[in-house]
């Protein structure tokens, strides 16, 4: 195996690792949106998806693109996501707050389904 082939292999491994980690974060964000109790807490889970999840996937694609114009475009996409997603999140949160959506402020700790069956 030549040195170049080893380099490509290392790049592919790093890229796949980044992509897999990003997918874990995106999946966790989606699960959090389903599992958390109210609007504001679900918004936090969605935040995981558009910060680390999206950025890790963009970085892995940059590694695949190499040192090309495509990589510069992907970098621009990542930069725009980084700056605009919190602005969108704030706009949604602010709209909900002004419309009178009351956040849940008490402890949310439902019983495990197994224990709930015992109660019934």
């Amino acid at each position: 195996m030549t040195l170049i082939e080893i380099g490509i292999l290392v790049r592919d491994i790093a890229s796949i690792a980044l992509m897999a980690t990003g997918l874990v974060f995106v999946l966790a964000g989606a699960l959090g949106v389903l599992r958390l109790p109210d609007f504001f807490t679900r918004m936090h889970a969605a935040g995981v998806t558009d910060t680390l999840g999206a950025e890790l996937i963009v970085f892995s694609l940059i590694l695949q693109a190499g040192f090309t114009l495509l990589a510069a475009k992907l970098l621009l996409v990542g930069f725009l996501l980084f700056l605009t997603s919190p602005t969108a999140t704030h706009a949604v949160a602010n709209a909900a707050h002004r419309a009178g959506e009351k956040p849940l402020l008490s402890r949310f700790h439902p019983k495990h389904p197994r224990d709930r069956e015992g109660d019934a």
Partner: protein
Amino acid sequence: MIYGTGLAVVLAVIWWVLSGYDKTLLLSLGAASVVVTMLLAIRMRIIDRETAPFFRLPTLIPFYTWLGGEIAKSNVAVLKAALKPEIDVTPRLVRVPVEADSDLSRCIFANSITLTPGTVTVEIEEDAFLVHALTPDFTGADGFAEMNARADRATDGRRKSS
């Protein structure tokens, strides 16, 4: 003037990155579009240090590198909270005092709070932000004060030490 030059250079670079053309005709069309955009911006009088913050990159880049580390840490914290077999969260709404010399500094601070998972800026007030947090772990006053000081220093450099 220097902000206008910076804006023109950044516009030209973005035009070229997005198109990737190298023919003289197309490049001159790109240059023409940059000139038209600059004329519009000058006529609207929106070129100042807030709209063209490119000369603060030497301090903004270290700030966003530090923020990236904080984002990674709180991402893992939210991940754990969302994936625990038994969800146990106590959401909090806190008022965070803000010390900022400029609108850009306030904006970057509010954006950084929202960018960090687990905390979202809900309302902007005169000298404070209303912040919603997923659990009380995210509402440490020291953490917010440090982020505020770093954002302020990154944008204006007036605060010498924290």
